[in-house]
């Protein structure tokens, strides 16, 4: 259909100043935090659920794909208009609709920035626990779509553990509610199922989140090791000692030097690796754990420092949270992997990554959530060099294959998106994917909501057989 007319009709719904259709404007929406690109045909910025519903109805009628997007900080291409169509930008739906302190819940719009929610809740002694590294920019709606994690997932879990209810616009434009403020509601847990579905099941327009009480005490430690292997073994030893820190992050020597030069976090330049460890809870519990952590780290660490004050604590974290930006200073491009392995396999996995780096003649830095085995190898490359790009792709895949071979996963927090849709079959058998596809088709029968994400192209591109499945076309 004529693009001109879809943009014009979008303007009728959301207003003239809330639609982009010039190529120059659209180019700002052709990429996210990752490496892939896809140009949308229009971008609309709704302000109400009703507008979202009208846009979805319009797109359904005209068979135009529709892709919801928060801040675009995703790394797997989830918010890209892979097959063109309309991007639904949520930057104008960014309000906190309700704060229910007694029940430790808030109802927010999807475009609200993660960090702003926690800031606003601090006066009640509460915060929103999921803290992706991009939390100062990323939106709650994006967190819900990708089931995002962050350093503190180790103790508090990913986004799904903190969402109890959703208002959702379905593929036909109907507005429905899943869950609510109760921890559990009657019927199937559609809230839990929806979180992490990467925008393929519907569009969340209001989100009920669980808030967490701010801890009484926090301690941040930096353990410094001569080798990455010693740091990796210490992660295993901490788990074996029954210690669950709130966060447990590892930076290898190459990464910490690169970060230190940019951020000045106070990391020693000659170390082989550091572990950044955070403990939270009751004062007495943190004191006890601090002693236990120091005892375990000191077996292999050169030194274990405890941050003296909040300023030092923030500085140590600045290194971790800005690591990806720092890498950007030294390499034209980098590719962030997001594999997961069982914690006990960290030492051999890091050895395997070093082998792959040597084999492919690439630099691979490691900065990751060691406590839950969620790796983020950063593969440095120059996108202008075709051969390098190819070797980068091979290295990325080899790392993920190794993760799977030791019982891990291909993504811990970034999602499958368009980046990993072709390798999802390495993790799930055809019959597993069949079941997921059926559920997809029950919600999104014409595949117009965020098409060609999660599932391999061969499945996504097939003529949808939803019409033939008994789940199709159901009404209440």
């Amino acid at each position: 259909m004529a693009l001109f007319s879809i943009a014009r009709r979008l303007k009728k719904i959301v207003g003239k100043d809330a639609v982009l259709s010039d190529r120059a404007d659209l180019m700002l929406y052709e990429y996210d935090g990752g490496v892939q690109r896809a140009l949308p045909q229009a971008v609309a910025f709704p302000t109400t659920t009703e507008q979202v519903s009208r846009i979805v109805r319009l797109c359904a009628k005209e068979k135009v794909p529709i892709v919801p997007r928060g801040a675009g900080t995703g790394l797997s291409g989830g918010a890209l208009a892979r097959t063109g169509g309309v991007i639904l930008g949520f930057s104008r739906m960014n309000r906190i609709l309700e704060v229910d302190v007694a029940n430790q819940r808030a109802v927010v719009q999807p475009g609200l920035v993660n960090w702003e929610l926690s800031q606003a809740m601090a006066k009640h002694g509460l915060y929103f626990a999921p803290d992706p590294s991009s939390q100062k920019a990323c939106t709650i709606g994006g967190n819900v779509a990708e089931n995002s994690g962050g350093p503190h997932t180790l103790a508090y879990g990913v986004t799904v553990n903190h969402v109890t209810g959703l208002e959702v616009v379905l593929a036909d434009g109907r507005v429905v509610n899943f869950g609510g403020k109760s921890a559990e509601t009657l019927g199937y847990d559609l809230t839990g199922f929806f979180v992490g579905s990467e925008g393929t099941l519907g569009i969340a327009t209001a989100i009920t989140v669980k808030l967490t009480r701010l801890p009484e005490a926090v301690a941040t430690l930096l353990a410094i090791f001569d080798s990455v292997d010693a740091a990796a073994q210490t992660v295993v030893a901490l788990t074996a000692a029954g210690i669950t820190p709130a966060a447990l992050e590892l930076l290898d020597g190459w990464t910490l030097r690169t970060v230190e030069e940019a951020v000045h976090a106070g990391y020693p330049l000659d170390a082989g690796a550091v572990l950044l460890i955070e403990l939270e809870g009751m004062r007495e519990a943190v004191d006890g754990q601090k002693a236990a952590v120091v005892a375990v780290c000191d077996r292999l660490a050169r030194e274990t420092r405890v941050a003296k004050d909040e300023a030092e604590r923030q500085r140590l974290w600045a290194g971790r949270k800005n690591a990806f930006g720092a890498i950007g200073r030294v390499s034209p491009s980098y590719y962030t992997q997001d594999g997961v392995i069982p914690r006990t396999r960290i030492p051999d996995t890091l050895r395997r990554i070093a082998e792959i780096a040597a084999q492919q003649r690439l630099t691979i830095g490691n900065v990751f959530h060691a406590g839950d085995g969620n790796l983020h190898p950063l593969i440095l490359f120059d996108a202008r060099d075709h051969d390098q790009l190819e070797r980068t792709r091979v290295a990325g895949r080899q790392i993920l294959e190794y993760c799977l071979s030791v019982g891990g996963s291909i993504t811990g927090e970034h999602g499958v998106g368009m980046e990993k849709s072709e390798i999802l079959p390495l993790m799930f058998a055809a019959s597993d994917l069949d079941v997921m596809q059926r559920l997809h088709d029950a919600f999104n029968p014409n595949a117009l909501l965020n098409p060609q994400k999660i599932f391999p192209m061969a499945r996504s591109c097939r003529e949808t057989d939803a019409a033939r499945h008994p789940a199709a076309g159901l009404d209440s």
Partner: protein
Amino acid sequence: MSAAAADTSVFSELAAIVGEAHLIEDVPTLLRYDIQGTQPAIRVSPGSAEEVAAVLRKAAERRLAVAIAGGFTQQQVGDPPERAEFLLDTSRLSALIHYDPGDLTFGVGAGATLASVAAQLTQHHQFLPLDVAFAERATIGGLLATNASAPLRHGYGSLRDFCIGIHFVTGDGVVGKGGGRVVKNVAGFDLMKLMIGSFGTLAVITGASFKVFPGPRQTATYVARFASLTEAAAFRDRIVRSALTPIRLEIISPRATEYIVPHGDPRDPDHYHPPAPVPAHETAWRLALTASGSDAVLARYRRELGDARELTGREEDEFWSGLRDFHANVATRHRNAMLMQLNLPPAGLAHALAGAEHAAVEQNCLCATLGRAGAGSLLVALIPLSVDPPSAMQYANAASAIRAALPHDGSAYVLQCPIEAKEHFDVWGSTPTDRSMMLAVKRAMDAGDILNRGRFLV
């Protein structure tokens, strides 16, 4: 008896799948597997997910209904099955899938009992934080299907939080899985969430993986008493807002005390007909919380909780095992009792419990209540007094009065009540979310509607 049992070809076809030794069609034996008045015609015990799939394909072909059974501890929940030609028993699906103590992850077949899982984990001082009743019989599959709730969820979260992978077979016999065996994983759809609490209506769960936890080194339980529900609720708010991080936080009504002590009061309203509600021995509302940690941590609790009674060691264990058996103690002593599961936003606790107490008086019942004061998951027992026999209207009216006292987003379903009464009211209550999407999910997973037919709300 249904037509299926008479049909010898079904028997021989099933025998070809699972072996004759794993089939039972003997009527007297099958009477023991009665589900709310419905007797299955054949009990079939598959030994693998592939066998489950083959059995379900047979059932789907012939449009036979399949009831799913683990330890038979929750078969009283929900509506009576419409039919149940096959009883699919999961007891042979109990093999260990993986246990990596260093990674704190554990995977096992759906038929494994909670006690057998606990025995394996305890060798490494680890545990699954599910302190539910009937651990010797309750199976992993059944606990997931019914979304079992336990006091430890206050500190460790619910099954929704620590089940990390699931294996299942759909109603048309497709073997599937979701998640995996690592603690952080967002690849593909989260099928664990769909299966947990689906009461066996979407698929047959054949196995699951969990995050497990290091066993607490030292615990103590503190029991505080209050003259009124209002005071107890205020104390609950104080705890929730404090720096304390208990691993359990339970509220116990005065009457509930009778059902959590090992040798309770012998009075039994089923046999003892007082002219008016008998006063409970215990008149206090109580809050019980368990602290876990070092001496310094426990000392802090002692300091902050003032005159709460401290229980440790055997006394503590007995207290919690009594509380765990509350449901069973009520059900054994009062065959006419109605038990309801309430889920609500936690600040609505006092209002909901006052509503239940009031409904009980109105309907000439005794009311005993306990549950997760922090998470808003409560058990309410209504025990009819002296009217003979209790009328269906009593249950129906009590259930609707209890539902009316719930805050917005709250729900209450019947865990147990006399089968005859179930015909007269809705045991599940209205669904607060979108029914049409639930129906679509059901059709996508079990298009023939053969799994636990008629049991759950969709």
